[in-house]
Every structure is written in structure tokens, then in C-alpha cells.
């Protein structure tokens, strides 16, 4: 099974791929560490200072900030590893090379990411945002409504960031999945995921919108000045759309269209008859349905074509078999008895030696019997000489070469015996080519038959130095050769130049 991947991987994929190869066994831990430091150094403090203007003037900023950071540190160092490492254990074990069910790993890397991220987000919303709001509200005389709505706005921003981590982790696990793909059972069906294409995309834009809305309107609260407010609104909106929104929509559209282009590639290659191509199953959404349909289709096409090929090969050998049966029957059931008739007529002829008239008649009878015998002999010798069955292709072709009307040389480098059907196909093809050469090459031409083999194939070539001919006009005989050789899984090429460089028929069959 071959799995298609886009020819030009996205820069992000390349980056992750490289880091995956560099980090190896510690990949999951390293990314947890990186996410943790991203949260602690960037996301968490940014959220605090973005929301700070919204809480209104007055009050202390330093104490709430320290409390918030302390909570964030606690969650990131204690809660997050505890939440994440359990579900991701199969991936960790897979990376360490331990025995683990590949389906488990797949589920951990695809299905569990949203759940882990949701749990982590909830931890930050409750254990992080609530203490922060309590500390903020204490010095600003918050009412209950202020607390609730303040927490709501903070949680909108936290959740948006949480979804961002879903997407980034999905990309991060892609190199693992790529390695995992060949290990999955061929009938692996991921089942339906809740995170369908449209939901994924809707969640992405919802989180980008929510983040922008909450952050921008909180930032404009910092000023009462009309010009400054407008400036903040415009710049913060563009900034948020380009940075957070841009990354999030970029990731989502990448995760969708990377797979669409995989489907395109797979279809192109199946069209080029690479039927073993399969598309990786990635997330259990609509695109996976399409991927599984494509895989089913490829299997069906592969099976159909194999069936027709096998049937063609069987038919070709059935025809050969019938032919041999006929030759044998003619020899055993007719020739032997006819010979007896001839012998007996011979005896009667001796008996009638004195009656010259009858004696002559006996001679005529014997001659007619001999003619019939010759006729049958000619037919039962048929296409295949006895040498082919008895001593193989080389001997048969040597005998044929000796009979051919133009001088023919056989060069065979120890081809030996192989499957009978293939031997007869090659013999048929070479014989046909030699007869063509004798017919079309013209006076003074010579022909050469070459046979050789390697581990996988038997090669043959019949070349003459005669006139050559125009290939267009004489399809039938050439087509027969091609059919016979292709029926046993080989191929044949016929080159003829009408300008006098001769004709060459060359091909191969599987050894």
C-alpha cells in the first residue's frame, strides 16, 4: 500500500517534520514544553494586559498580575502535564518504539487532541481567570455582574486560544501519523468524529472573531479620546486579523486543502494505473469519507483489473491447452491406427506380389494413406514443435531458426526452462516475428534471435536487417503477438523503419 502525500509540503509541515526527526522519542514532551512556555510567556500575560483597560481605572495592576501569573504557572506546570500526558501516552510509547496498538496511537493523535485542549482550557478558565478576577475586582469594587461578565470576557479569549492549540497540535502530530499510516490495518475505519469540516471551520472563525471582538473592545476602553480610540480599533483589528485570525484560518484551510490536494494526487495516479495508491485517513470527518470512498474505489478497480487480467491469462492458456489436447488426440487416436492400416496394406501388398495390377493398387492405397498421414502430421505438429515441450524454448527456437527461409542466428545465454505458458508465448511471438522477417525482409537479409534473462524477467528479441515495413497497415499479426505476451504479464515492442534499417521485435515476460 502506498499513501499519497502532497508533493510540495507546506512550510509548516516541513518545519514540524524536521523537528520531529530532530526530537525523535521526546517529541510529545518537547512540544508540551514549548506550548507551556508559549502560554506562560506570551498568551497568559498578553491576555491580562489586553483585558486590563476593560476593568476600568483605579486599582492596583501589579498584585493581580502576580496572582494571575502564579495561577498560570501552577496550571501550566502541574495541571496541564497531568491532563495531557495520560491521553497522549500511546503516542509517547509509539515514539519510544514500545509495542502499542496503532489504532490507539491514531486515536490519541487525532481524536484526543480536542478533548485534551478543552480540558486544559477549562482549567485556565476556572483556576486561572477566577482568581485573577477576584484579585482585580477587590480593588475596584466590582459588583457580582462585573465579576461574571469580566470572567466571561476573559474566558472568551482563553477559549479562543485553546482552539488555536487544537489546530497547532493537530499539525504537530501529522509526522507521527505519517509514520503510523502503514501500520494501520487496511480496513481501518475511524468512525465519525464530532469535529466535522464545517464545525472545525466554524469554530476556527468563531474563536478568531471572539478573540478580536473581546480584545479590541477591551483595548479601546483604555481611552476616552475619539482619535486614539479609532486608531486603536483600526490597528488592533487589523493586527488581530493578521496575527491570530490569520494563523487560525491558515491552519484550518491548510488542514482542509492539504487533504483535498492529496485526493487530487491520488486520483491522478490511479488514472496512471497505480492502483495500489491509497489516501491516508486523518480525522474521521467528511474528507475521510471521501478518502475511504477513494480507497474502496481503488481496491475495486484493482480487483476488477486483476480479474480481467487473470481471465485473459487463463483463456490464453486454455487455447494452448486445447490445441495440445487436439494434437495429442490426433497422434494417439488417429495416427497410430492409420499407421496400422498402412502396415496391413503393406502386408497385403506383399501377399499380392504376383498380381501386378492389384499390387499397384495397393501401392496407390499406401501412397494415399501416407498423404493423409503427412497431412495430419503437419496439423498436429501445429504451432508448437515437440522440442518446446521436451527441451524448452532454446531448443525449439534453434530448430525454428534452422528452418527459417533467411539465414538466422540464435544467441541464447543460458535461459533454461521456465513456466510452460510463458515459454509457448515467447515461442509464438518469436516464431511469428521470424515468419514476418522471412516474408518482408527481402533478399539477402539475415535475422538474429536473442534470448537473455535476469532474476525477474526473460528478454527476447528478433531483429533483421531487411527493408522494414510500415507498421500502420498490418495490425493483426502484431496485435496477436502483443496479446499473447501481455496475457502472461509481459510486454513487447515492435520497431520497424521503412527506410531499410530492419525490423526489431523485442519484449520480456516475467521469469
Amino acid at each position, binding site marked *: 500500500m502506498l499513501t499519497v502525500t502532497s508533493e510540495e509540503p507546506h512550510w509548516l509541515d516541513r518545519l514540524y517534520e524536521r523537528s520531529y526527526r530532530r526530537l525523535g522519542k521526546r517529541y510529545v514532551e518537547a512540544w508540551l514544553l514549548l506550548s507551556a512556555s508559549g502560554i506562560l510567556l506570551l498568551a497568559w500575560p498578553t491576555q491580562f494586559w489586553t483585558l486590563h483597560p*476593560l*476593568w*476600568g481605572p483605579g486599582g492596583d495592576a501589579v498584585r493581580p498580575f502576580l496572582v494571575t501569573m502564579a495561577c498560570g504557572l501552577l496550571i501550566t506546570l502541574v495541571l496541564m502535564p497531568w491532563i495531557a500526558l495520560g491521553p497522549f501516552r500511546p503516542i509517547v510509547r509509539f515514539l519510544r518504539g514500545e509495542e502499542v496498538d496503532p489504532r490507539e496511537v491514531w486515536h490519541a493523535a487525532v481524536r484526543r487532541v480536542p478533548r485534551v485542549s478543552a480540558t486544559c482550557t477549562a482549567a485556565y478558565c476556572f483556576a486561572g481567570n477566577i482568581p485573577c478576577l477576584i484579585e482585580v475586582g477587590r480593588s475596584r469594587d466590582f459588583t457580582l455582574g462585573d465579576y461574571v*461578565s469580566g470572567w466571561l470576557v476573559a474566558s*472568551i479569549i482563553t477559549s479562543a486560544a485553546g482552539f488555536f492549540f487544537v489546530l497547532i497540535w493537530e499539525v504537530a502530530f501529522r509526522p507521527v501519523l505519517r509514520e503510523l499510516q502503514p501500520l494501520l490495518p487496511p480496513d481501518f475505519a475511524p468512525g465519525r468524529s464530532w469535529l*466535522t*469540516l*464545517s464545525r472545525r*471551520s*466554524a469554530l*476556527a*472563525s*468563531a474563536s478568531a*472573531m*471572539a478573540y*478580536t*471582538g473581546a480584545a479590541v*473592545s477591551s483595548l479601546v476602553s483604555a481611552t476616552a479620546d*475619539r482619535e486614539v480610540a*479609532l486608531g486603536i*480599533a*483600526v490597528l488592533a*483589528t487589523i493586527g*488581530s*486579523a493578521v496575527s491570530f*485570525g*490569520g494563523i487560525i*484560518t491558515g491552519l484550518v*484551510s491548510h488542514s482542509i*486543502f492539504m487533504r*483535498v*490536494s492529496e485526493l487530487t494526487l491520488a*486520483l*491522478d495516479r490511479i488514472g496512471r494505473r497505480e492502483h495500489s495508491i491509497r489516501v491516508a485517513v486523518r480525522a474521521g470527518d*467528511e474528507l475521510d*469519507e*471521501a478518502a475511504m*470512498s*477513494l480507497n*474502496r474505489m481503488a481496491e*475495486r*478497480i484493482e480487483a476488477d*483489473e486483476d480479474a*480481467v487480467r487473470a*481471465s485473459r491469462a487463463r*483463456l490464453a492458456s*486454455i487455447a494452448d491447452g486445447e490445441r495440445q489436447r487436439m494434437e495429442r488426440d490426433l497422434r494417439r487416436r488417429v495416427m497410430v*491406427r492409420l499407421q496400422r*492400416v498402412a502396415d496391413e*496394406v503393406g502386408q*497385403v501388398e506383399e501377399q*499380392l506380389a504376383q498380381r501386378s495390377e*492389384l499390387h499397384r*493398387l495397393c501401392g496407390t*492405397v499406401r501412397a494415399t494413406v501416407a498423404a493423409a498421414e503427412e497431412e495430419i502430421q503437419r*496439423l498436429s505438429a*501445429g504451432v508448437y514443435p515437440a522440442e518446446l515441450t521436451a527441451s524448452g524454448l532454446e531448443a525449439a527456437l534453434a530448430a525454428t531458426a534452422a528452418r527459417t527461409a533467411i539465414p538466422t542466428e540464435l544467441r541464447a545465454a543460458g535461459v533454461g526452462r521456465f513456466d510452460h505458458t510463458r515459454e509457448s508465448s515467447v515461442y509464438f511471438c518469436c516464431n511469428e516475428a521470424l515468419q514476418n522477417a522471412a516474408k518482408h525482409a527481402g533478399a539477402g537479409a539475415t535475422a538474429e534471435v536473442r534470448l537473455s534473462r535476469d532474476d525477474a524477467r526473460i528478454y527476447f528479441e528478433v531483429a533483421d536487417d531487411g527493408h522494414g515495413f510500415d507498421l500502420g497497415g498490418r495490425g493483426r499479426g502484431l496485435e*496477436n503477438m502483443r*496479446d499473447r505476451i501481455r*496475457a502472461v504479464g509481459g510486454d513487447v515492442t515492435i520497431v520497424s523503419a521503412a527506410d531499410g534499417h530492419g525490423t526489431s521485435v523485442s519484449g520480456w515476460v516475467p521469469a
Partner: protein
Amino acid sequence: MSSSAAPQVEAGASGRVTMRLDAFVARARAAMGQWYFHGLLISTGIFVSWVSTPYQNLTQVPFWTHGFGQWRYVGVFGLLAFVSAPLMLALVLYPRHRSLVAHLRGREADPVEVWRDCVTRLPISAAVVSSVWSGFTIGLGLVYVGRREHFTATTYVGAYSSEALVTVGVAAFYLMIYEVALLPIAREVALQLPPDFADTAVMSARRRLVFLNTAIIFTVGCQAAGLAMGFSQAGRPLVVAVVTLGLVCTYVGAQLALVASSVSRRVAELSDALNAVASGRHAVRIRPSSGDEFDAVGRSFNRMVDLLDDHAQELRRSRSRLIEVADATRRLIERDLHDGAQQNLALVSMQLGQLESGCRAEPEAAERVHAIRAELSEVVAEMRALAHGIYPASLEAEGLTSALRAAARESEVMVSLDVAVRKRWDHAVESAVYFCCWEVLQRVGQVESDDLTVRIGLTEDGGTGLVDIRVQPALPEEHGADLEQYLQDRLGAVGGTVATTPDDHGVAYHADVPTC
């Protein structure tokens, strides 16, 4: 040559959204008929001046006045839109989509042009219309507001930028509406497109998704900030929470609908087409309907199906050619035997007759010649049987029925023939059917049993020949499987199919073959 549009799988929320949208669009089209595009333009005009422009500026008023006191500014913008929107739509949008109008009104129109009007030209139309329109309405409106609110140059720049950002989102929204509304027409026209049609839109699906999301973010950011400015500092967290969630809910619906129509629908279509090929239907094609990545998938799919068809046909042809060659060889051998060896043997028989009658005076020799004649006639009979087995001469001359009768006469088992065929079938088909029956008789003949019967029935139905072969009792397992394979190969090579049904008493082979 069609691909079903209905998603085969329940695609969750997106599926429902798509269907509801489709149903709505279909109803609107049916109601407006040839005035569909005009109707679309007029409703856009009404919606722009009565809904989207007032709503857009309502969120901007607090930026200018620190509150919602000056309602009349919203009215001024609405009035400007009411005047300018019809002009824009009639002078810019309508002329750019003339082919579409012609198509709708039943006039002659190049399908390629109509398709472009519905698909690739839309984003540029949206860009042109919205920039000209926003320059006019927003520019004039802001001058009116700025005069009364004492704007400085910075205020003008800030206010105009904020308005422009919101407008990007609104324009994206209208673009999406038009795409969904014109999709059925694009799909209808796609049937008449040339087969090598491969237009790609600037707005690929990937770019569309990114653009729409960015546009919505612009809108949400500036609207949320504007609304937040309109409320006092106390209680502002509540306003921010409500406004943000409200805006998100509003626009997520639009986003869902877009993804449903431009991504999920296409993926479902692709799955359907792939499933169709997987279940053996090769006539499926995917029509281009957006000039994006999914059209590229569709093109790859169509190309693949074509190539596979060609290849499968070539393989089948090669198979039937092999059989034809084998059959022709058999016929040739039979003819050679008949014209050569059998004629010779007849001559021998005649000469032996002469010899026997000449030998009256030599009774001993006469007796031997008589014995030789007897032996020769056995050889002749043997020859005839063999030649018949190779290729019955009657098959070509008189047809399947008489060849089968001869085969049945010669067979060692009980054969009953039931032939209801008037016409001659194609020669290759007659040979295939004959040799299948012959093979059955041969194999049954090898089984040592007394009460074997074979029943052969031939009928025809239109262009299909129906062959029914019953063997009682059934052949031993390995013979049976072998025979079934043979029948399938032989009849498959002439395009037939074979079904095997075993029952208590024996086994029946039913075959359908195209007879011409």
C-alpha cells in the same frame, strides 16, 4: 453523465444548512423565473439601503459622538445608500453579467461566459462595486458627519478606515450570497461546457476561506469596538461580553453556510462519485462549479474515469481478440482436416473398395482387405468426432442450434435441448456459447455415473441471449468450480455474465450475453 448533488451521508449541521439554503434558492428561482438575476439585484439594493448600511453605521456612531444620541447620522447614511445602491447595481454589476441575464431569459448565450458570470467574475464584481460604492456613500456620509462633529484630519482617516474594514466584511457577505444564489445556474450550465474546460478562479477555495474569515474579523473588531465605545465605563465588561458573543453568533451562521456550500457539499459530491465508481458505475462525471480546488479534484476524477475506461476496454478487447484467434485457428484446423486428411481417407476407403472387389479371386487377401476397411472406417469416424470437437463445421454454416444438436447426439450423457432462438447471433457469441455447452458436456462425460442429465435452454430477449444450463446431479466440487471459471472467462470475453445457482438436485448456470 451526471453526479448526484444530494449528499449521500448525513453531514450533520452543515448538511442541513446546505439543504435549507438550496431549497430556498430553488424556490426563489422558481418564483422569479427569467427575472431571477433582476430580483437578486433589487433585493440586494433594498437590503443594502434598509438593513446593512444603517446597521453598519449604527455601530460606528459612538466613535464619532461618544454615544448613540445622534441617530440621524444613521438615517443620512441610509439615504445615501438608497440613492447610490441602485445606480451601482445598474451601472456596474448588471453590465458585467449580461451573459447570465441572456441565459436566464432564454436567449442564446455562450455557456462558458454564463459559467464565468456565475463563478469567476463574481469576486471582481464584488470588489469593484463595493469600493466604488463605499468611496461614494461613506465618503459623502463622513463629510456630512465630520462637518457637524468637528472632525480633524486624523479623525477622518480613522473613521474612514474603520468604516472600510467593516465594509470588507459586508462585501464578503454579499459575495457569498451571490455565489450561493448563482450556484444552481452554474451547475446547470456546466453540462454544456466543453469537456476540456478548465477555468480556474483567482478566488480558490483556500483563499476564499481565508479571505472570508479575515473579512469577518475586520467587521467584528470594528463593530465591537464601536459598540463598546457607546456605553459608559461602568458595566462595560458586560457590554463587551454580550456584543462579542452576539456578533460571533451572527457571523458564525454565515460562515457555516459558506463552508457548507463551498466545501462540505463538494466533498460529499466527490464521495458520491467515488462510491459510484467503487460500485461499478463508470458513467459518473463531476461538473465544474467554482473554478477552485474542488474543480481540480473533479477534473482529476473525470480524467481518471476516462483513462480507466479506456484501459479496461483495451484489456477486454485484448481478451476477446485472444479468443477470436484461438477460435479462428480451430476453424482452420477443422477445415484443413476436412479438406485434406478426411478427403484422403475417403479416397483410401474408395481405393480399398476397389482392391477388395479386385481380390475376389484371392479370398484370403479379400478378407484382410475387408478387415482393413473396417478399421479404416473406425479411423474415419474417430477423425470426424475429433474434427467436430475441434470446431463443428455446422456452427458456422447452420448456426448454434444445429451445432448443439450434433454435440448432444454425440454426447454420452442425456442431453435435452430447448432452443427458442430465431435469429443468428454474432459469430463470436455463438462460438462462446457453443464451446461453453461443449465444455459442460465434456466434463459431465468424464464423471462416472449413469443418471446424469444435462438440460440446455436458449432464449433471447431483445439484444440479450439467455443461456440456461442445468446439470443434475451437480458435478464434484473441484470440477464444478473449474467449470464455472471457464464459463465466466469464455462468456466474459464476449461481454456476458454468468450466475451459478446450486439447488437440491443439481446446479444451474444462467448466462446473459449480448448477441450482437
